């Protein structure tokens, strides 16, 4: 894969919708003065037909490629976005926005409530995947793009992709849904609940009003991240990476991080709290738990996809992903087939667990390259 060359055009900013264009929420209310932070790569062509929207996962953000402003690390999907990559900025206008409820520039629980002048905290309304997508649709429309060539996402990003297909089928040409599901399972909800309880058990959480007191529930959020991180891997990946290797010579006969895997998790938890807001974590995990695309359609998933019959779908899963296992993707594909949509599906052999969608998986790269090339050339 060619990694040379710079991205031809890179842009970004924050779109402020103001008081006249509130975001309608699934909970029944609305959110005024919404701001959506976004980044883009490549140039929108004259007829605005080359736009691809990338939807990010739970703790990721709009910094798909390039350098992350907080962590200083490389963007999270540079293996897909860049010169010579499946989404080449020379061909595509690639857009990604921070979800509403997030903490990387879009309006979320950490934003200032214009009504009080203080951070929202728990007065922020509960948002859904549908709300995130509605905000994206507002952004895309504001940019003058009437139809996206494709919507692409993994994990929670895949949920948004499916929501796009259900809510705005006429405004998208193709969908790529990687390592995701059409609903959160009991196990998914249970795992999220552990994380939320860890955050809320931290005395520095202060009922969500920690910003008022100038503290942060870092310990609780770190524990939540440690637990979640295990679910992104697999038994095989953990064994391969760490086995029973020790940090130092011999056991400490205490509760220090004796094992390398403990040290790794502690590091993951510690690094996470520097870039993520605890209340955002609560709100976004809640949005995922509430996600059940079939629910408004009498529990029949195919009905949700029926208007998307002319959309091309590419659904990918990984063999060792136990967070969103292959049967969840097959469930989506069956419903797409039942709805008569053009669905493709591939289960990729990998021992890397759920995180495989972010890692070195050449089969995923070539499948996405093939699919996206066919979208671009209109085949």
């Amino acid at each position, binding site marked *: 894969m060619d990694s040379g060359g710079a991205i031809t055009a890179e842009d970004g900013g924050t779109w402020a919708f103001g008081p006249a264009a509130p975001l309608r929420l699934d909970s029944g209310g609305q959110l005024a003065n919404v701001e959506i932070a976004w980044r883009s790569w490549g140039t929108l062509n004259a007829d605005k037909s080359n736009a691809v929207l990338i939807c990010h996962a739970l703790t990721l953000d709009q910094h798909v490629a390039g350098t992350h402003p907080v962590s200083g690390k490389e963007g999270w999907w540079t293996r897909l976005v860049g010169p010579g990559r499946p989404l080449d900025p020379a061909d595509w206008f690639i857009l990604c926005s921070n979800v509403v409820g997030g903490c990387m520039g879009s309006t979320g629980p950490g934003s200032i409530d214009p009504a009080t002048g203080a951070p929202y905290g728990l007065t922020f309304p509960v948002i859904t995947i549908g709300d995130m997508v509605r905000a994206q649709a507002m952004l895309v429309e504001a940019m003058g793009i009437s139809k996206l060539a494709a919507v692409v996402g993994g994990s929670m990003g895949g949920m948004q992709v499916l929501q796009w297909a259900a809510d705005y089928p006429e405004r998208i040409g193709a969908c790529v849904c990687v390592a995701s599901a059409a609903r959160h399972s009991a196990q998914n909800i249970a795992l999220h609940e552990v994380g939320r309880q860890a955050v809320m058990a931290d005395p520095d959480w202060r009922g969500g009003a920690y910003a008022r007191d100038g503290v942060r529930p870092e310990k609780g959020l770190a524990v939540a991240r440690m637990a979640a991180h295990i679910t992104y891997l697999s038994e095989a990946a953990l064994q391969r990476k760490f086995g029973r290797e020790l940090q130092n010579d011999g056991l400490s006969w205490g509760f220090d991080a004796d094992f390398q895997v403990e040290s790794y998790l502690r590091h993951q938890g510690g690094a996470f709290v520097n870039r993520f807001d605890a209340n955002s974590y609560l709100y976004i995990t809640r949005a995922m738990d509430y996600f059940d695309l079939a629910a408004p359609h*009498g529990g*029949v*998933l*195919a*009905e949700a996809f029926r208007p998307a019959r002319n959309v*091309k*779908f*590419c659904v990918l899963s990984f063999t060792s992903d136990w967070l969103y296992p292959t049967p969840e993707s*097959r469930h989506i*594909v*069956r*419903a797409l*087939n*039942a709805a*008569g949509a*053009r*669905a*493709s*599906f*591939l*289960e*990729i*052999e990998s021992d890397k667990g759920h995180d495989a969608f972010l890692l070195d998986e050449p*089969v995923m790269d*070539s*499948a996405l*390259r*093939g*699919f996206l*090339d*066919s979208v671009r*050339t209109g*085949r």
Partner: protein
Amino acid sequence: MREDFREILRLVRPGTRVLDVGCGEGELLELLSREKSVDGRGVELEAQNVSACLARGLAVVQGDADRDLDHFPTKAFDYAVLSQTLQATRNPRHVLSELLRIADQAIVSFPNFGHWRVRWSLLTRGRMPETRALPEPWWSTPNIHLCSLADFAALTDDLDLRVDHAAALVRGQAARPIDPGRGIENWRAENALFLLSRRGAEPEPTGEQRDLFGA
């Protein structure tokens, strides 16, 4: 072009919906899309082949004929194609009846175990036949449910299917229309291709179908 592809291309009406089960790298689907403007879908077991299909812009689902046909809605296609694969399935009878639940017509081709080369090989060597149509030894062949043309014809009767067309296929030669009821064809046809449709009542959706599709 493969002779069975040529024959399938001839049989399929333009503008129809076609499901190719075991579509490989999508060669037939691409041919049918280009020459007959069909709305094609595929099912394929190998990840690499699915990936190749995606690059051709084809809609292909990874899966196998035994397990994943159940998930397609009833009468979703005009044709379901199963090329040289029936003998490798675990439950050919179920697969065949599923093809004719999903589609109005099925196009099925398979190597004929009644062909004279097979008979001759078994008779003279007394060992499992290895012929040009069936080149692999018994211990590695994927063909676990081989049948003769006469066996297959009996199964179509049993499932109350109508034979709309049958042809004998020999490598490098044009397809030859045959009457599958004639005993001589069971000796002569190296490979057979059938175009089948249901004779009896409309197929019923399965239990899972009803649940999934709200039917």
